[in-house]
C-alpha cells in the first residue's frame, strides 16, 4: 500500500499534539546514538558485567521512543514498518524456542547448553548458548514489545468500521 494512503487512513487525532522543538530535537540527536550504544553494550556484555538483555532491550526500544518524541509519532511510524516490530517480537520468541529445542534435538533437556560444547564441540558452549537467548531472544522481544506498545497506545482504540 502506498505510504500516502496509509497515513491518510491513520489520520488519528494524536499527531496534532506534536510541537516541533529545537531543544528536544537537538537533545535527542545528541543522546540517541549514545543511548543505542549503551543498550547494545548492556545486551552484548551482560554476561560479564551488570545489566543484561532485559535492560539493554528496554534501552534500545526507548531510543526509538525518543526519536518518536522528537520527530513526531506519525513520521516515525511511517519510517518504522509494522513488519520490523512484529519481526523483532516474534523472531525473539522463535530464537529462544529454537535454542531450547536445539538442545533437545541433541538429546538433552530444554536449554541444556553444555551439549553445544560436549556434542557440537563449540568452545564455551554454555556461554554462547546463553548469549544466544539473551541477545537473540530477550533483547529482541523486549525492544520490540516496548516499541509496539508505544505505537499501539499512540494510535489508540481501533473502532469497528475503520480500516486496520
Amino acid at each position: 500500500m502506498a505510504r500516502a494512503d496509509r497515513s491518510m487512513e491513520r489520520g488519528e487525532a494524536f499527531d496534532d499534539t506534536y510541537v516541533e522543538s529545537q531543544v528536544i530535537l537537538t537533545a535527542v540527536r545528541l543522546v540517541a546514538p549514545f543511548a543505542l550504544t549503551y543498550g547494545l553494550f548492556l545486551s552484548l556484555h551482560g554476561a560479564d558485567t551488570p545489566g543484561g538483555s532485559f535492560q539493554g532491550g528496554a534501552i534500545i526500544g526507548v531510543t526509538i521512543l525518543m526519536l518518536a518524541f522528537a520527530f513526531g509519532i506519525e513520521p516515525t511510524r511511517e519510517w518504522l514498518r509494522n513488519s520490523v516490530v512484529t519481526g523483532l517480537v516474534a523472531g525473539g520468541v522463535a530464537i529462544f524456542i529454537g535454542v531450547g529445542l536445539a538442545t533437545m534435538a541433541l538429546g538433552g533437556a530444554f536449554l541444556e547448553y553444555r551439549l553445544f560444547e560436549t556434542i557440537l564441540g563449540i568452545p564455551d558452549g554454555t556461554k554462547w548458548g546463553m548469549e544466544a537467548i539473551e541477545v537473540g531472544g530477550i533483547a529482541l522481544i523486549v525492544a520490540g514489545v516496548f516499541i509496539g506498545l508505544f505505537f499501539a497506545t499512540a494510535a489508540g482504540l481501533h473502532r469497528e468500521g475503520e480500516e486496520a
Partner: protein
Amino acid sequence: MTPLEGTLVVFVFVTAVATALFRDVLSAIIVFAAYSLGMAILYTVLLAPDVAMTEAAIGAGVTSILLLLTIAKTSRPASDDLFEEIHVPGLIAVSALALVLLTTVPDAPAVGDPAAPVWSNPDVTQYYIQHTYDDTGVQNAVTAVLAAYRGFDTFGEAVVVFAAGMATLLVLNREVFA
C-alpha cells in the same frame, strides 16, 4: 545509614507521597519518574546494579513515556487545587498497613550483614557464587541464574512479555503495531 542513603530515603519518601497527592496527573507522572530515579540510585548505593538498571530503564523511562502518551489522549480536569483532597478512611487504612509492615523492619538483618540468611545459606546464594563461573563460563551470576540455571523460567517470562504485546493489540482492537 550514611548521609547519602538518608537523603535518598527522604527523597524517595517525599516523591512517593507527592505522587499520591498531586491533583494534576502530569505532575504526578513527573514526580513518579523522579521517584523511580531515586529508587534506581538507592539500589546502586545498595550494590544492586542489575535491579537499578531495570528500575531506571523501565520505571523511570518506559513507564513514564507510556503514561505521558496516555494522558496526552485525555483531557485535564480544570481545577486550581494543587493537591488531591485526602480521603481519611483510606489514609487510616494505608497508615495501618504501613505500621504493620514497619514492625518487621527491626527484625531484618543489617544491610551487608555476612550472617544474613539470604547471603550465608550454602544451598542457594553461596552455591551460585562458588559454582557459576565453572558451570557456565560467565562472570555475572545474575545473568547465569536468569539464562542458565533458571532458563526455563526466563523463557516463560519472555513469552509473558510477548503475550503482553499481543494482549495490547487485542484490547485496542488492532492488527498492526506500527
